[in-house]
């Protein structure tokens, strides 16, 4: 390992340890824990949307499918069957994976905006089904009854572990041979097929990972919230949050969603006192960032300094011998915007 990557690993480990240790200090309150928990969950949500849109070009508007499914699973398992929350959480994530496989045969026939709209329609259909399904109390929603109810500290630690796990999964997928194919697919899927990339398999893998992790994330959101309704559960605002987080942070960067999630959570906490205007203000901020920093905050910094916090770029020197070569970004022209 080179010196710079050693420093990087040390810094990352230090941050992770700090995130586990800080809550033990007497200064932390339930409210700071709640904010930490939300940042971890929104970051996970963003990471999974980024894995699909930022690395494979599948722009999903239906991430709430997995959130709602997992949320309802927790509610049904806990309230109807009296089972512990983790049973509902993993069952919900499992069903999300099965659902992603089943949907893939229909959805992957479509590309671009057609794919996006189809995922959205799927979530709207689920919303209608859950609103008229007596087993889940129709439109009346469900309260999650757990005894003992996990406190905010416990949920924070679970969420922190989840977001770290999500990072590791994304990092390893992108560094694998499939990840190499995914990036090619994002730039040009016909040409990547003509270079031998198995597009269906690569897309399916991403969709399944995204379904599983987003499902776990949704379950934790709703355990934290205590009740679930079909409207918000399958609402587009989950995906809107993910899109905001990824665009602000930097689409197609691994660390972008952290920055995006921190900004999103603090902004929505601050804006919650301006009910009704908050979405408008978030929208204006998103537009301003897109105009000023088209690659997002992390993406712009990385381009300016030719440096990536966690790089998945392969260099010839690196693969043939070891050691790290620099990619010349300054001469690169980017088509992500004009495309």
């Amino acid at each position, binding site marked *: 390992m080179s010196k710079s990557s050693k420093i990087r690993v040390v810094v990352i480990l230090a941050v992770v340890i700090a995130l586990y240790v800080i809550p033990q200090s007497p200064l932390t309150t339930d409210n700071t824990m709640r904010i930490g928990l939300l940042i971890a969950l929104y970051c996970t949500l963003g990471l999974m949307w980024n894995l699909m849109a930022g690395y494979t070009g599948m722009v999903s508007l239906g991430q709430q499918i997995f959130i709602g499914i997992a949320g309802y699973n927790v509610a049904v398992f806990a309230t109807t069957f009296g089972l512990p929350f983790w049973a509902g959480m993993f069952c919900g994530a499992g069903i999300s994976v099965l659902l992603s496989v089943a949907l893939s045969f229909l959805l992957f026939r479509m590309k671009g905006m057609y794919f996006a709209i189809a995922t959205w329609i799927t979530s709207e259909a689920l919303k209608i089904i859950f609103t008229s399904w007596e087993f889940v109390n129709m439109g009346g929603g469900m309260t999650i009854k757990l005894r003992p109810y996990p406190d905010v500290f416990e949920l924070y630690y679970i969420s922190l572990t989840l977001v770290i796990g999500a990072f590791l999964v994304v990092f390893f997928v992108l560094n694998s041979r499939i990840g190499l194919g995914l990036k090619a697919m994002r730039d*040009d899927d016909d040409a990547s097929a*003509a270079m*031998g990339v198995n597009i269906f398999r690569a897309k399916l893998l991403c969709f399944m990972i995204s379904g599983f992790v987003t499902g776990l994330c949704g379950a934790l959101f709703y355990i934290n919230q205590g009740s679930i309704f079909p409207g918000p559960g399958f609402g587009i605002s989950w995906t809107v949050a993910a899109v905001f987080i990824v665009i602000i942070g930097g689409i197609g960067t691994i660390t972008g969603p952290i920055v995006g999630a921190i900004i999103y959570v603090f902004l929505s906490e601050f804006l919650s006192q301006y009910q009704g205007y908050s979405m408008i203000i978030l929208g204006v901020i998103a537009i301003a960032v897109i105009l000023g920093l088209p690659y997002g905050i992390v993406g712009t910094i990385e381009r300016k300094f030719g440096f990536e916090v966690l790089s998945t770029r392969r*260099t010839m020197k690196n693969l043939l011998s070891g050691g790290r070569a620099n990619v010349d970004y300054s001469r690169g022209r980017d088509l992500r915007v004009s495309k």
Partner: protein
Amino acid sequence: MAALLRFEHVDAGYGNVRILEDLSFEAEYGQILGVIGPNGCGKTTMFNACIGHITPTSGHILFDGKDISKFSPAKRVHMGIGRTYQVPRPFENMSVFENVLVSAVHGAGHTERQGARIAEEALGITGLTEKAELIAGSLTLLDRKRLEIARALGTEPKLLLLDEVAAGLIETEIKDIMKLVADLKSKRGLTIVWIEHVIETMVGATDALMCISEGHELLIGDPRAVMDSREVEEVYLGASDEEVNAA
């Protein structure tokens, strides 16, 4: 069987538009088969059918004796078909090296470390070694065309489909590309199907020449004989003669 690639009465097109009509030809092992024909006659569509971007509505495409008509593009690449695009389609946000690495890893089935050697070689052959770490989107047209060839070579093909690799280049650049193609045939024993508009290129550099007209093969044979034939002159050059006379 002497033919590496064989089209048998292939009909194909996009949606309801039929471009190829009853197209039959073969490319023999180790041969450079040139393909000419007026714009819109179906040359590129023939390549799209070869690689599997479109599926024939009738007829068969045989590669190495196997019917590949219904195979996915990825599977055809694994079998040994490599193609370039007329308008280069590099993976714009990846480096030149990564572009070729994709084809060596996914097309030829190597690990990334083995693939890096294949990519290094392909970049060497096409003269892109110096530019390996540049972002592909920043390349000039000539380099993009070279990258198309490097990427196709990365898949370690038996059959190379070249789609107008010389078009839009200046004369010295065309000479470079022609030498490259000739080397690929003689040193690597590749079978090459080569679409090109630059007539002089085609007569000198190919073993056989096919002229396509309205999706159907008009004439296949010795390059000089095909070029000199009256039919080819009528469909391919005749139009421009009339334009000259009219003007």
